C-alpha cells in the first residue's frame, strides 16, 4: 500500500488538542460498564497503578442520557442539565478535567460546550435549570478528554513498560490492525479529536507505538451502524448489521489481525454482528476464518502491559482472541476463561467464534 505518511503527519500536527496530565474526573459509559466492565476497570487500574495518576469517580454520577438524546426521547435542554450536573459534581470535588469513557457522551459534552460557546444564553439557561432542579451550581470544565485521548497521551510510557508488542512473535511481522473511531469522537467537532475527523490519530498513535501496523481501507471512516434507534428497535437492526458488514467486506482483503475501537457501541456491534453474520450467512471474516477480534484500547493496552486477558474480560467478546494472543506470544489458558467467584469453572458457552 503506497501512501505518503508525511501527509498524514502534517494533518495530525494540525489537530493536537490539549490533554491534561493528571487529576481527572471520570464518568462511565452505560454500554461499556454493562458489556465491557473490564475495560473501564483496567482504564482506572492502568492510570492509577501503572501511571500513578489521580482519577476521581463520584458514585453519584449517572448516565448522560446520551442514548436517549440520540434516540430522540430526551430533549437537548434536559441533557444539557444532566451533563451540567456532572460538571457540578466535578466542581464540588475540585476537578477541572473530565475523562469520559463513552464516545457518545464525549460527543454530547463537546456539542454542549460548543453550543454554550456560540449561544451563551443556553449556558445561562442551563445554570438556571440545574439550580432550579437540584440547587447545584457548576464551573464549565477546562478540558474534556475521551479516555482514549488519555491512553493516547501516555502511549509511549505504556510502550516503555510493555511486556508484549503488537507483533507476530513467530514471524516478527507487525500485526495488521484496523482502527475504528466512534463517529461522535471527532466527526462533529474535529478539533476535539486527536488528529481531526479525516485521519484521527488517537488509536493509530497507540497501535504504532505498541508495534503494530495500521490498515487504511476504503470504509475506514464508515459508521459501525449502531445508529441508536436503528439498533434499539429490533425491526431496524438490518441497518446496523448492514453498515458493519460493509466495513468487514472492505477490510477483509487486508487480512487484519484485530480491530481496535474507542467507542462502546462500535466495539460491541463489530463483535456482535460478526457472530450474527456467521449465523445468517455462514461467513466468518478474518485470516483463516478465525473472525476478527474487536478489542477496546484499554484491553489492548492491558495486553501490552501483560495483564491477564481473562481478568480484563476478553472472553466476553463473541470473537475469541486466542489466535491473536498466540501471535503476540501471550500465554493464557482458555480453560480459565469462564470462572465463578470461587474460582470453579463455569460451563463454556457454545458457538463462540474460535471458541
Amino acid at each position, binding site marked *: 500500500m503506497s501512501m505518503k505518511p508525511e501527509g498524514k503527519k502534517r494533518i495530525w500536527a494540525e489537530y493536537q488538542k490539549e490533554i491534561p496530565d493528571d487529576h481527572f474526573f471520570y464518568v462511565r459509559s452505560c454500554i461499556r460498564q454493562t458489556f465491557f466492565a473490564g475495560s473501564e476497570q483496567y482504564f482506572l487500574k492502568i492510570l492509577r497503578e501503572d501511571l500513578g495518576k489521580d482519577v476521581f469517580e463520584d458514585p453519584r454520577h449517572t448516565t448522560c442520557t446520551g442514548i436517549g438524546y440520540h434516540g430522540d426521547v430526551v430533549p437537548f435542554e434536559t441533557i444539557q442539565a444532566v451533563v451540567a450536573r456532572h460538571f457540578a459534581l466535578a466542581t464540588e470535588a475540585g476537578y477541572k478535567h473530565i475523562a469520559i469513557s463513552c464516545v457518545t457522551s464525549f460527543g454530547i459534552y463537546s456539542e454542549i460546550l460548543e453550543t454554550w460557546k456560540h449561544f451563551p444564553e443556553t449556558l445561562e439557561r442551563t445554570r438556571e435549570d440545574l439550580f432550579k432542579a437540584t440547587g447545584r451550581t457548576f464551573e464549565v470544565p477546562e478540558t474534556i478528554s475521551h479516555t482514549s485521548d488519555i491512553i493516547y497521551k501516555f502511549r509511549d510510557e505504556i510502550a516503555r513498560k510493555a511486556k508484549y508488542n503488537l507483533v507476530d512473535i513467530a514471524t516478527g511481522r507487525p500485526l495488521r490492525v484496523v482502527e475504528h473511531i466512534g463517529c461522535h469522537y471527532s466527526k462533529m467537532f474535529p478539533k476535539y479529536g486527536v488528529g481531526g475527523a479525516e485521519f484521527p490519530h488517537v488509536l493509530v498513535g497507540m497501535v504504532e507505538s505498541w508495534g503494530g501496523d495500521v490498515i487504511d481501507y476504503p470504509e475506514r471512516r464508515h459508521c459501525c451502524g449502531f445508529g441508536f434507534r436503528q439498533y434499539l428497535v*429490533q425491526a431496524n*437492526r438490518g441497518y446496523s448489521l*448492514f453498515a458493519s458488514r460493509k466495513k468487514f467486506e472492505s477490510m477483509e482483503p487486508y487480512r487484519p489481525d484485530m480491530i481496535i475501537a474507542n467507542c462502546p457501541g462500535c466495539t460491541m456491534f463489530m463483535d456482535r454482528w460478526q457472530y450474527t453474520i456467521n*449465523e445468517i*450467512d455462514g461467513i466468518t471474516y478474518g485470516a483463516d476464518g478465525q473472525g476478527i477480534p474487536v478489542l477496546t484500547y484499554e484491553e489492548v493496552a492491558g495486553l501490552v502491559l501483560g495483564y491477564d486477558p481473562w481478568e480484563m474480560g476478553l472472553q466476553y467478546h463473541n470473537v475469541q482472541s486466542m489466535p491473536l494472543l498466540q501471535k503476540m506470544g501471550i500465554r493464557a489458558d482458555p480453560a480459565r476463561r469462564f470462572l465463578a467467584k470461587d474460582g470453579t469453572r463455569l460451563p463454556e458457552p457454545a458457538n463462540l467464534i474460535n471458541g
Partner: protein
Amino acid sequence: MMSEGRANKFGFAISRSRLIDYDATDRKVREYVTLREPSFRLCFACGGCTATCTAGQHTSFNLRRMNTYIRRGEIEPLREEVTRCMLCGKCLLVCPRGVNTRNVVAVAAEAIRKLGRNEL
C-alpha cells in the same frame, strides 16, 4: 447477499444496498442507447421533459432520472419505468438540447427487453 429480504431468525430483515456501485453496474443499455440514439449524450438533466411529461402527471415516470440511471448502468428501477411513457412527444418540443427523447425511451425499452432475454 443471500440474507437480504425476509426477516431472519434474529427477527429483522436486511435490505439491499441503494448505493450505485459504478464498478459493479452494467452499462450495456447505455451503450445500446447511445449507439442508436446519439443525441442521448446531449442531455444535461434540466428536467424539462419530466416537467412537461403527460405520463408523469399520472405516475412516477421521470425521463430525466431515467437518463441518469441508464448512464450509471442502474437498470433495475427502469424495467417498469420505461413502459409508462405514452410517446406523446411533448418532451421532444421542450428539450433545450434537441435530444430525440421519444426515441431514447423507445430504444431504452427495447434494450431493457433485450437485456431480459440476454440479447444485448
